[in-house]
């Protein structure tokens, strides 16, 4: 399996509690890398560095063998989609939220909004078509998390960086989301996921699973 994303000694220094996060890992096509570690070990920070939302203090990242500094951040984020722990929903209806990325120059250049896929994802995640006209700000946390995932999937990324994607979901919705992620991963050979989750049951159902453990203190993370 070809390597999509590789990060080597990716480092971030937390001055607040004098903590050093240092992690290395390799993400291959069709695989899932689950990041584990106690609270405050830097799991979310690692995902944000991989999304290039936070600058690392050291180390490097390679996307398909190419150094990240030679790839535009827009192109990078187009390929590597980060979903934060707290789903972010914009003003307007659910439909407007799903279509929103297609008003951006980078996305509208090479992807079109696909109603069929949007409908498939909504059904698979247990969201009714009537919800499309609902004001998105009135969604529950679980509904917002599912809409945010669909919005990310519709722009065809290659890598998903998921920070606690099932945190706001009930048991049934959790199973649906894991099934959608599994199908998404297996439907194309070039896709991969990095996930942070406190629900071991969720991630164990995902294919090609590997773990990255982050230590509680200043030691670095190691790929197991």
């Amino acid at each position: 399996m070809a390597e999509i994303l590789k990060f080597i000694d990716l480092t971030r220094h937390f001055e607040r509690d004098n903590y050093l996060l240092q992690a290395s890992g390799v993400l291959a096509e069709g695989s899932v890398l689950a990041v584990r570690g106690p609270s405050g070990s830097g799991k979310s920070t690692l995902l944000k560095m991989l999304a290039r939302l936070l600058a690392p203090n050291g180390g490097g990242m390679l996307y398909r063998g190419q150094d990240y500094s030679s790839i535009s951040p827009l192109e990078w984020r187009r390929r590597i989609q980060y979903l934060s722990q707290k789903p972010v929903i914009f003003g307007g209806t659910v439909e407007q939220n799903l279509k929103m990325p297609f008003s951006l120059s980078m996305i509208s250049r090479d992807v079109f909004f696909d109603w069929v896929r949007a409908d498939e994802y909504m059904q698979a995640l247990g969201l009714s078509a009537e919800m499309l006209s609902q004001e998105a700000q009135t969604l529950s946390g679980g509904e917002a998390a599912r809409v945010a995932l669909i919005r990310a999937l519709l722009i065809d990324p290659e890598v998903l960086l998921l920070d606690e994607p099932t945190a706001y979901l009930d048991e049934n919705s959790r199973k649906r989301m894991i099934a959608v992620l599994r199908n998404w991963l297996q439907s194309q050979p070039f896709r991969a996921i990095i996930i942070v989750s406190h629900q071991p049951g969720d991630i164990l159902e995902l294919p090609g699973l590997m773990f990255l453990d982050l230590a509680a203190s200043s030691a670095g993370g190691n790929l197991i």
Partner: protein
Amino acid sequence: MNYTYIPISNLQLILSVSLVIITGLVSALFRLGMLKSLLWGSVRAFLQLTLIGYALTFIFKNNQLYIIVPVILLMCLIASREASRRVGKAPGKPMLVSFIALTASTFVVGLIVVMLVISPKPLYSAQVMIPIFGMILGNSMNGIALSLDRMYSEIESHIDEVEQLLCLGATPWEAVRNYIKKAVSAGMTPTINSLMVVGLVSLPGMMTGQILAGMDPREAVRYQFVVMIMIAAAVAIGCLMIVGMSYKKLFTDDMAIVEGLRKN
């Protein structure tokens, strides 16, 4: 009808202080704790205006560009400090950006008005340039301060949305454009409102001053119209420049939000 200038004598000036006493009594009666500030403010206003009266007399008498331009630049510097005061801890250099925006908008509009509309002789008349530039500057300063403050507060309170837009592939401009529009609108609203109600609700200070100084009101309104249009133009240019230059400072070279603005 003769229009004459009515001078204010020293006695009349002292009489005006009675108004300060009334305000002071109100403050003392309701225990507002403002008496000290009120007295100090009145003393400062008197001293500052007296000094500027002498300074302007000196500048007008000499009427040299090498005096006029530094004076206007000094006014721009003071105004830019005031405009950026509320966002002092913002990323980048808000005071420098304010200075550039204020100086550029003031000089562009001021020079057009002085050179092409009023056309005094000589063209660089201090008696025309300093009051005109001062009026532009005062209004631009308020517009810029409002825009800048609104831009930072809007973006700070919507930081998650901005970051999410970046994640979805937005450029920094695309990520903040809605907040920028609100910021420009906030800066321009007072000027547009004053265009709407001028003459109906209030007589502007300049026009009032000219009428009190003995000018025919029909002439005074012509000046006032030019002044209001030039102020609107300067505020628009200033607000657009300030947000255009400032929003970029909120992003890193990697098109991510600068650390000072992040919550975590």
